[in-house]
Structures are given as C-alpha cells and as structure tokens.
C-alpha cells in the first residue's frame, strides 16, 4: 500500500518535471528569434556572450547601434567598446541597462545618445519586448520592466514570455526551431551593420511642437545616469547622432547644452559636424537619413574616436594580447559581411 503510494508519487513527480520541461521548450520555440528579420531584437542578449573589459559603453536607441562601429574604433584607435543599444530604447531602459552593465564591468567612459529625451512615457509594447526580453534577470531588469510597461502589459508576461508569444504557434518558421537554444551573432559588439545606400532626398520638415521642454521623468533618468557615472568615476559623454530623421529641434538642443554645461559633461551634437567628419548624406545612409550605413558609421566612428581618445584619455589596446584575438576575429567577420555588399 505504502509502496504503491510512493510509486505513484514518484511517477507524478517525474511527470511534473517533464511538464515544466515541455513548457520551457514551448517557450523557447515560441519566442521570436530575431535572426533574419528585425535583427535589432537580438542585440541586448548578445552582450552576455562578449568579453567584459571595454573602455567605452554606448547606451541609447538606434542612433548608437546603427551609427557607431566599435570595429572602427578598434582599428583606428585601439579603443575597446560595446554598444548596449536597442530599438527605441527609452531613457529609463538605458539607465537600467547601464546599471546592469556596470555590474559586469567598469568602463572609462559611457556615451549616451540624447534623442530618447523626447519620450517621457512608455511607448510601444513591441519595442519594450525587444529591449527587455533579452536581458538576464536582475533587479535592473525588473525595475526596467516596471518603468516601461504600457497599459495592456503585465509583468508576469515578462517572467513567462510564453504568455506573450503563445499565439506565434501559427507563425513558426524553420528559424524558430533552428535557433531555439543557440543564436548566431547578429552584431559587432552591439553594432548592426547595414550596407545599403539610400541617400537623403528631402530635408525633414520641422513641424512646430506645442511644448519643447523634455518631460520630468526623462530628466529624472538623465540625472540618474549622470549620478551613476559619477559614483563609479566614469566619464559620461552625451552625443546626438548626425542623422536628420527624426527631427532634432533647436529648443531641445538648448536644453541639453544647458544641462551639459551645468553638470560639466562633454556634449557633441554631430549634426553640426557632418561636413567635418566627412559624412555625405547622399551616400552614407541606408534609409534616406534615418540611419547611417556602414560607411557613414565608420566615418562617424573615426571622427568620434579621436574625440573620445583625448576627452577620456583612453589607452590603445592594439598590442594588448588579452583582447587582440577577440577583436581580430571580429574584424574578419565584420569585413566579410561588409564585403558582401560590394
């Protein structure tokens, strides 16, 4: 009697383990892989696979991960850097990503792209998922989720993404099976390489806004970023990428300039140095002015790297055996992908 009871309990226990596994597999299968389409969804998770000994960390939206090439920074100046960028990364997401990153490494400089100051509230569920799902679990992730959720979202669906993506069962492709547990690298230390050329044809129209002042919430997080870097003795650099869409208003520029002056932070608006950096918007963007292609990104990186090197006193690692092989491998991969375009 007792024996059969124990046997039953044993069987049920085994079945329970199996059902948890089944759910785990289902979740792994159903989550979007971001391998051939919407690659930017895969960016955040890739960080954990890379060595964590960078001198510069970039945080921000596509204006960092499409416009700055860490490979060029390496090739030209021996700067080691990583971009923790994601699509429409909101400023609180940048903050929490930075907080998380600083647990793994302490860079000499952090660069934040200021475009996301224009958003004061949660925006878009799909972009939230791309920024948040890739993060490993930590207090930072939980806090970032809570700060980012739009009205219809629920926290539990981040804990169990199956609850969010269950209906993808009818949209599954080969890719979903292939990349269930291991993914290809889509980026070069966070940089998403684009080789198309589509020049700017029309200048953006600056539709007037009712209110140009950044929101309180956005300011709050900018303060937090500043504070965090100060505590860790990291040089914070503010930047605005040289892409002309979406519009960057003069009124916004003034506010950032004032802030930078007040906090004694270097701020570079590359819209003002397009010519100086050699960027040609008729050839160096891949989508008519929203993002730079690889040639544009390289020009900007060359220009910006020079500044960073002096501004933050960055060492040249090109003779450093500890990192050399990693970067050389990356260079090869990078040149290969870039080469396919020509």
């Amino acid at each position, binding site marked *: 009697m007792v024996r059969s009871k124990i046997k*039953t309990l044993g*069987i*049920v226990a085994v*079945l*329970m383990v199996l*059902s948890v596994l*089944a*759910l785990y597999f*289902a979740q792994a299968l*159903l989550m*979007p892989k971001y391998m051939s*389409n*919407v690659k*930017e*969804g895969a960016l955040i998770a890739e960080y954990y696979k890379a060595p964590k000994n960078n001198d510069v960390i970039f945080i921000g*939206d*596509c204006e960092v991960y499409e416009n700055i090439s860490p490979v060029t920074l390496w090739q030209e100046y021996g700067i080691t850097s990583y971009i923790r960028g994601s*699509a*429409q990364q909101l400023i609180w997401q940048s903050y929490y990503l930075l907080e998380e990153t600083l647990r793994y490494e302490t860079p000499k400089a952090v660069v934040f792209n200021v475009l996301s100051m224009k958003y004061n509230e949660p925006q878009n*569920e*799909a*972009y939230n998922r791309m920024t948040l799902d890739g993060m490993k679990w930590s207090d930072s992730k939980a806090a970032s989720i809570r700060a980012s959720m739009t009205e*219809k*979202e*629920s926290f*539990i*669906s981040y804990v169990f993404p*199956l*609850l*969010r*993506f*269950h*209906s*993808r*069962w*009818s*949209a599954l492709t080969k890719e979903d099976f292939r990349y269930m547990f291991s993914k290809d690298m889509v980026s070069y230390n966070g940089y998403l390489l684009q080789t198309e050329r589509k020049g700017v044809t029309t200048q953006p129209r600056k539709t007037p806004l009712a209110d140009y002042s950044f929101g309180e919430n956005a300011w709050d997080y900018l303060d937090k970023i500043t504070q965090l870097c100060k505590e860790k003795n990291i040089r914070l650099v503010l930047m605005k990428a040289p892409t002309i*869409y*979406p519009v960057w208003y003069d009124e916004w520029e003034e506010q950032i300039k004032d802030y930078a002056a007040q906090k004694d932070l270097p701020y570079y608006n590359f819209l003002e140095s397009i010519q100086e950096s050699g960027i040609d918007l008729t050839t160096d963007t891949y989508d008519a002015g*929203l993002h730079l292609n690889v040639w544009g990104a390289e020009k900007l990186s060359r220009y910006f790297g020079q500044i960073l090197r002096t501004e933050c006193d960055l060492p040249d690692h090109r003779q450093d055996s500890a990192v050399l092989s990693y970067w050389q491998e990356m260079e090869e991969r990078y040149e290969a992908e870039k080469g396919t375009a020509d």
Partner: protein
Amino acid sequence: MLFTSFEFVAFLACVLVLYYLIPVRFQWILLLVANVFFYACSGLYGLLFMGVTIVTSYAAARIMSAVQYHMDDTVKAHKEVWSKQERKAYKQQIKRKKRMIFIGCLLVNLGILAVLKYTNFAIANVNGIAALFTGRHSIARVNLVLPLGISFYTFQTMGYVIDVYRGKAEAEKNIFKMALFTSFFPQLIQGPISRFGELSQTLYAPHRFDFRTVWFGLERVLWGYFKKLVIADRIVVAVNAIVGQPDIYSGFYVFCGMLFYAAELYADFTGGIDITIGIAQMFGIQLAENFERPYFSKNIAEYWRRWHITMGTWFKDYLFYPLSASMPVLSMSTFCRRHFGAAAGRRIPVYFVTLVVWFATGIWHGASWNFIVWGLLNAVVILLSQECRPLYEKFHAHFPGIQKKYAYRIFQVVRTVLLMSSLRMLDCYRNVGLTFKMFGTMFTDWNMTAAMKGLLQLGLTAADYAVVAVAVVLVLCVSLKQRRGSIRERLYERTAAVQYLVVFALLFAILIFGAYGIGYDANQFIYNQF
C-alpha cells in the same frame, strides 16, 4: 477583474491557499473579504448599490420572519379563544403587514435595477416618440454606470426575499452571511442565480481540504477556460467583423456569423459557468448547475429547461407561477372560457402569461428592443410548437419508431440549434430592423465561392479556424460522453499519471491556443523608424 485576466488567476490562487490554511470557522469570512476586494476592483460605486440591496433584503427578511413568528405564537395562544373567522381575520391582517414589507423591499431593489438599467432606454423611446411629433429629441440621456453583476445579484437576493415571504426559507440572522450570499464572487458576473435554501448551507459551512473535490474543481475550471479562451475569445473576432459591417457581410456571411455566434455564446457562457462552478467546488461549495447540454434538446421548450437553467427556474417560480395564479389572470381565464369557449379559454391566459414572462426575460437580458423582440419571439416559438403538438403526434403515429431513429434525433437537434441561433441574431445586430434584413439576406444573397475566400479576411487565419474547429469537435465529443455520467468521475478511476497528463494537456492547450494576452501580431514587430 475578468476571469481571463492574469490578475484574477493570481487573486484566486491567493484566496484558495489562504482558505485552506485558516481555521475552517473563518472560511466564510475570508470569502466575504475576497468578495469585497473583487467587487471593489471594479469601482467603489458598485459597492454602494450592493450594500443597499444587502441591508434592505436583510431587514425585510428579518422583519417578515419576526412578524410570522409573532403571528404563529398569537394564534397558538388564542387557539381556544378565537373562532375560525376571528383567526382568519387576524391572519389576514398580519399577512397584509408582511406583504407591505415584502413589496417595499422588492420595489426598492427592482427599482434600483430598473432605474440604472432602463432609464436611458426609456428616454430613447420617449425621444423617439416625441421626435415623431416635434421633430427633435427633447430629453438628454443620463450618464448611469451599471454596477457589476447587478442583474444577477438583484435576482438572486430577491429570490431569497420571496422565499422568506413565502415561508420557504429561514431569514438569515447574520447580515455578513447575508452579504456573502449576495456577493459570492465566482457567480457575481454571470450567475448561476442560486437559491438561498440550496446555497446557504454549503456556503457558510466549514470545508476541510479534500484533494478529490479540489482536483475536480480544478479540472472543471480548466475545461471552462478551454472553452472560453480557445473557442469563444477566438471566434468572437469573426463574429464582430461580420455583424459590425452588415453592408459588406450579407448572405452566406450572415449564416456563418450566426453559427459562429452560436459557438461563441455557448463556449463563453457554459465555459464561464464551468469556471464559476469549478471555483466554488475548489472551495468545497456546491453551486446549482446552469446547463445540461442544451444544444442536444429536441425542441425549444426543452432547450429552455436546459440552457441557463437557474434563470429559467427563477422566472418560472417567481414570475410565471405567481402571474398564473394571480387574480386578474384567473378572472381572465374564467371570462374567456365563458365567452369564447373552452379552447380559447384555456389558451388566452397562458398566452398572455407566457408573453409577459418572455418580455421580462428579454428586457432582463438588456435594455433594448432587440432583446424584447428576442424574448417575445422565443415565446411565440414555444407557443407555436405547443400548438403544433397534435400535428407532431399524428406524424409520429404515422411513422412509428421514427422518434427513436438516430437520424431523426439529429434532425431535431439541428433544428433546435438553427432556430435558437437565428433568434439570437438579435443579440448581434444594431437594431431589430437590421437583424430582420440580414436574416432575409441569408435566403436571397448567397454567393458561396466569393464568401469562402472572404472568411479569411475577418481577422482569423486558416489556422485559427482549424483550432476552433478542432476545439468544437472536442467539446461535442465531451458532451456526447457526458450523457453517460460524469467524465471526471470516470477519469478519477484511472491512474494518477493518466489524470495528471489529461489535466496538463488541457492546461497546455489553453496556454498555447487560448486567445488571451496582447496576442502576437507580426506586423507590430515590423521595423519602422526606430
């Protein structure tokens, strides 16, 4: 908090764990607290109205029962003294008192329901009539929010007041227990409408943890979620698309919409009730059944004895019977028999009462002409089929044994389903005229080939339809099996592994194929300017 929200599942889990951890004598208090929390989630405003219902019904019941006891004592004390006439007169006098309290309580509570639910409907009708004469709308609509579940809890509580008035139920002495009866959260939103006599004992009683009961409850809850999430919440997209654009979707689409709605409503309502009864069962509480495989009914009258049973019996016990036995109807009966003969005499009063009851049933469902017409049409169909009974009997006599034939049974079932589904189109379309027009197009405007393609443009993919179809077949098979007794009982005889696997498979199917959460729309993830 909707049953299908993550919050509700979490809430339920918490209450359930606490329920079996605390001393059993406090269990009913925990349920009451849970009710208050559940109800407050939909706004504090509703609590006020429910409070009025609880207090007035509690007071009315207590007073009526005190008056009754006093009367019984007095009669007993005067047994030797009073003549039969004196006793009758005294009883009459007391009964009148009781009646006053009873009617007062009914008026207050049904009055609240009527004002909140029907004021705008009344205003719209008055305006409509006024517009005929003056050409403009004179009265502005008022902004009234209907408290959650008011139709259900008002009916359930009034049933209690009527039972106490009739001496069929004891008045509850503890107002908090009374409050628990009115507000029991699983059944608050969609019933079943419970009888005090049946529910009160099991509701207030202590319940020790019993694995089998909780397990059965869980199985039923999952089955309910399966019906609701996999079938109803998925097919509803197509239903809304069809009925929302009657200009585009006519003919064959209307027919599809009608059948889809039949599936949706069945899955949604019986699924919701399964969740309700299952939850109650997990608490050890037994609720009345509300459905008995209604689509298998042979005719409409039978259908209404098997669909939304607790509402049907409510109207039967508290409206149909009292109305039938009321003075005006009895006088009408006598009058008609004297003047129009036996055949008309026996019919007219029943027709009258049936129509009144179905009018009330219709308007209870919703404040619109659609529901009124729906109710009355139900009455007409029921009366017609009653009138046709001799005809059927002749037919059956002519083809002896046909009633036993499987094919004939299927014909009857299909007939019931189609008939009820077509009446229910009134649920769907904007107004009565449009409903009839669209019903008409089913017979005139039938372009199958074009329509089949169009079904994929209603917001559902072929895969969605396939899931719904498989789920519907599964539900049908389960219903067929159920005729031979409880499936859960039979499953319980199997090994633990089999039981576990069945439950897990159900959970897994709900998690994957249920239409819940934000839903994945690949277009949402298409890269744009960021």
